[in-house]
């Protein structure tokens, strides 16, 4: 983005105007990451018998719509299906003339109309054929798969993506229910998590650095100030001032528990002048209100400590990602100073302009100094673990320092399968203990997946989709998996809830409803945006949406 400079008559470019409403969420850096990303959509994988062309792929197309609009670099739709009449009743990105043509080609054409900046192409063949080419999968930053699909294909695709470190989103939408899971690499780090600004203030009032402590001299005449001056002392200085007073009578200790803080708050309050025309002082009100949340000693959050202790952070190599090098440099900083680098931002407060600005400069200067030290550490680590592909940019280190207290590493898991990892089964059993849980819907989908797999491998006829026998057999299989260990008894209520979920799924025989798929396409696109921009915090790892009760749940399966 163009940096504005004083006096220049620089308006936004037409691209900035088009993307204005989203740049306010993920800034130019997020936008650039999107524009560099290409997304693969595997929107079906062959028919379900003679009557059905298989997955309608509405979630997939709606997801892509929500990614093409904000301007991803490009997309490829893989879909061997031919457009049929029922497609026109659910898919907005097809038209009457599309009947009988390649669905990949038609949806690609109509999606491209949404944004001339986005490159789109298609392949009208099964993805298994494309995976033969080793150059195919590595082009993509993200893979979307529209289910239900047969398990062998899904398994092959997700292993191939996992080997390349490419995240996979697997979605299913049938009738009023939908579910999707996100498979992330084993360590997926995020610097810009965008926490609530209220929760991120770090003012260091209990342990001020020398320059901040020295700023107190500017209000040494607090008692003799005129009302105007007195009412405009920034509350940060007021708190520092009263802390000094408090320490005088408390053996040099700061207020440390709730009781002491309440007493300290009364001390601050008692300093406010009430004989003025306003009958009080706003800056004192602000100081009083800040006591409980601002007077806390610095503590390293356990999630950050865990990151510092991870092997990736402690055992750097020349191929370590930039994230780990910077994290390691910040760990050194922490080990030396027992605090993280100061983020340097100061909330707005009642104050004269010049007083506020000079206080702000004290915070900014300290933040710059801390960052400089971290940069030094980074350069040393770079030299130690050379050769590295490129020097880490100063501004990336600066961004990291600002966000150091809120970074996050997600430990990605494989797309969950009932008969997969032990932790999946355990998490499902846990969720089942709540009778309101939507996990029964997830299990219903497991039944559907197995029926589809049976149809595609000729073990069952396509009539299975509406066969009570087939669905009941599926529920029995799920129940056996759940009770495979003798200790874990699953009650009759659970069975009933899974049966109800399968009844609702069976109602449309695997078909999508546009509303539910459009909603799911919104949710899935949101996760895709977070993965591609590496901003905000993506799903870890499964979501179920229930369009009957209009609610959703997340599980780590």
């Amino acid at each position, binding site marked *: 983005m163009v940096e504005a400079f004083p006096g220049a008559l620089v308006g936004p470019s037409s691209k900035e105007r088009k993307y204005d409403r989203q740049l306010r969420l993920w800034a130019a850096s997020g936008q650039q990451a999107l524009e560099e990303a290409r997304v693969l959509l595997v929107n079906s994988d062959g028919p379900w018998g003679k009557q059905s062309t298989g997955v309608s792929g509405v979630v997939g197309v709606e997801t892509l719509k929500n990614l093409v609009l904000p*301007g991803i670099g490009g997309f490829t739709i893989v879909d061997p299906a031919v457009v049929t009449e029922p497609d026109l009743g659910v898919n907005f990105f097809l038209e009457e003339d599309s009947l009988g043509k390649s669905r990949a080609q038609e949806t690609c054409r109509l999606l491209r109309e949404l944004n001339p900046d986005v490159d789109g192409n298609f392949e009208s063949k099964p993805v298994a054929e494309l995976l033969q080419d080793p150059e195919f999968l590595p082009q993509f930053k993200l893979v979307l798969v529209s289910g239900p699909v047969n398990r062998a294909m899904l398994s092959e695709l997700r292993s191939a993506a996992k080997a390349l470190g490419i995240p996979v989103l697997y979605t299913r939408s049938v009738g009023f229910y939908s579910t999707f899971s996100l498979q992330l690499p084993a360590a997926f780090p995020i610097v810009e998590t965008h926490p609530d600004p209220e929760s991120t203030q770090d003012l260091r009032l209990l342990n001020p650095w020398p320059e901040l402590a020295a700023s107190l001299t500017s209000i040494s005449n607090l008692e003799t100030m005129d009302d105007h001056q007195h009412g405009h002392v920034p509350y940060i200085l007021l708190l520092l001032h009263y802390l000094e007073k408090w320490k005088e009578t408390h053996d040099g200790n700061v207020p440390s528990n709730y009781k002491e803080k309440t007493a300290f708050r009364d001390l601050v309050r008692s300093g406010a002048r009430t004989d003025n025309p306003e009958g009080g002082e706003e800056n004192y009100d602000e100081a009083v209100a800040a006591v409980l949340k601002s007077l806390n000693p610095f503590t390293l959050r356990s999630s950050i400590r865990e990151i510092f202790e991870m092997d990736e952070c402690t055992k750097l190599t020349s191929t370590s990602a930039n994230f780990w090098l910077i994290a390691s440099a910040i760990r050194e900083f922490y080990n030396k100073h027992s605090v993280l680098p100061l983020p340097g931002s100061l909330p707005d407060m009642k104050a004269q302009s010049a007083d506020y600005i000079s206080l702000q400069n004290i915070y900014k200067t300290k933040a710059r100094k801390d960052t400089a030290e971290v940069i030094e550490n980074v350069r040393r680590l770079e030299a130690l673990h050379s050769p590295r592909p490129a020097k880490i940019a100063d501004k990336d280190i600066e961004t990291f320092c600002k966000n150091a207290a809120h970074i996050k590493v997600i430990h990605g898991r494989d797309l969950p399968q009932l008969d997969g990892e032990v932790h999946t089964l355990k998490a499902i059993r846990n969720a089942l203990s709540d009778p309101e849980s939507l996990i029964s819907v997830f299990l219903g989908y497991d039944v559907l997946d197995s029926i589809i797999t049976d149809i595609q491998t000729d073990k069952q006829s396509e009539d299975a989709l509406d066969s009570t026998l087939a669905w009941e057999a599926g529920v029995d299989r799920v129940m056996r998996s759940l009770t495979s260990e003798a200790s874990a008894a699953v009650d009759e209520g659970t069975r009933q809830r899974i049966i*109800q979920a399968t009844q609702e799924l069976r109602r449309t025989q695997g078909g999508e409803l546009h509303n539910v798929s459009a909603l799911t396409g919104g949710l899935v696109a*949101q996760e895709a945006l977070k993965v591609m921009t590496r901003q905000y915090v993506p799903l870890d790892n499964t979501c179920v949406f229930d369009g009957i009760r209009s609610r959703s749940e997340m599980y780590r399966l």
Partner: protein
Amino acid sequence: MVAIDQTLRWKHLYNVLTRSGPFSDEDWVPGPETISTLESSKILVIGAGGLGCEILKNLALSGFKDIHVIDMDTIDISNLNRQFLFRQVDIGKPKAEVAAAFVERRVKGVKITPYVGKIQDKDEDYYMQFKIIVCGLDSIEARRWINSTLVGMADFENPESLKPLIDGGTEGFKGQARVILPTLSSCIECQLDMHAPRPAVPLCTIATIPRQPQHCIEWAHQIAWQEQRKDDAFDSDDLEHIGWIYNAALERGKQFHISGVTFQMTQGVVKNIIPAIASTNAVIAAATTSEALKIATSCNPYLENYMMYAGEEGVYTYTFEAEKKPDCPVCGNLARRMTVDPNMTLEAFIETLGERPEAQLKKPSMRTEEKTLYQRFPPQLEEQTRPNLKLKLGDLIADGQEIAVSDPAYTIDFRYRLDFS
């Protein structure tokens, strides 16, 4: 052209309309009648913007055949990142017309009637023709207007007069969808405080002690423009005007050593821009249309009555029943209590009504049962009641007295009971 086989085309939708599910009402009779009820249900969409475009598409693909849409706006370049029915060549054209024509072209057999104008242009007879009203608006004022109009229309003798209002709203990664059955369930006004305006920066900060880049922009917008260009009507869509404000704010910032004024921030502050993306709109719009389908067909129970969504950290939704308030000025029958300082002048009180989360009335007139306190119109009455503005509340009314407040933006009176602090 080949005749369309409706049953084949709408196969998936018809499946849920012709077969009961485990959660559909026991008395519900699925089948062709449900389908024809749906197709004959006239539905109104208010707003053809980020939510509206999605809502129109979703309704057309949910089997609604007679859709109306109202929007007064024209298409701007900044709409194109999410309002997917619009293209570069449509910039400047009315949203309602372009959106209606696009969906009609794409989904054969649906009729979409656009109206380019304000919802306030239409009367009760107009709103009475619809079975359901879906709202995708960014203005709280318009929401309150349609809400109070629909509550006013509800007549117990005539069940047809009860028009379900399905409302959606988004901001960045967050949004909400809710179902309102006028007079029967919680309405927009019951939870007005959930739409509290952002606290305004005090004028003295803007005028004399700016500290943030936003304060410099407010100064350029509210003060410098008035002083230097008061003959030009300020237009926030005019880039030259924004550019002027931007430069004035930059200068102001330089003078006070405040950095960080950018063109983007200037636009954001002046136009009060709310971040918006396609994906959040997709979620909320589809949540509203899914409820519309359920209400129109009874194929599954509908939302009672509020769903919140937040997507910054994973996928979070919270579904709950918002409470109907007995002291709601619109659907309740008790006056809403408000604590006031009896030493405050009527003028100062009137000013606070604009910002109080539970009132948000910008141009109020007010009276007690016995007398008019302040009346903006007609001019003679304004002149007659003007002296009251300087009087203290304590001298005008008694502690605990009820007042009726009207505002040109709304069709109804708001009742408040003023308790002295």
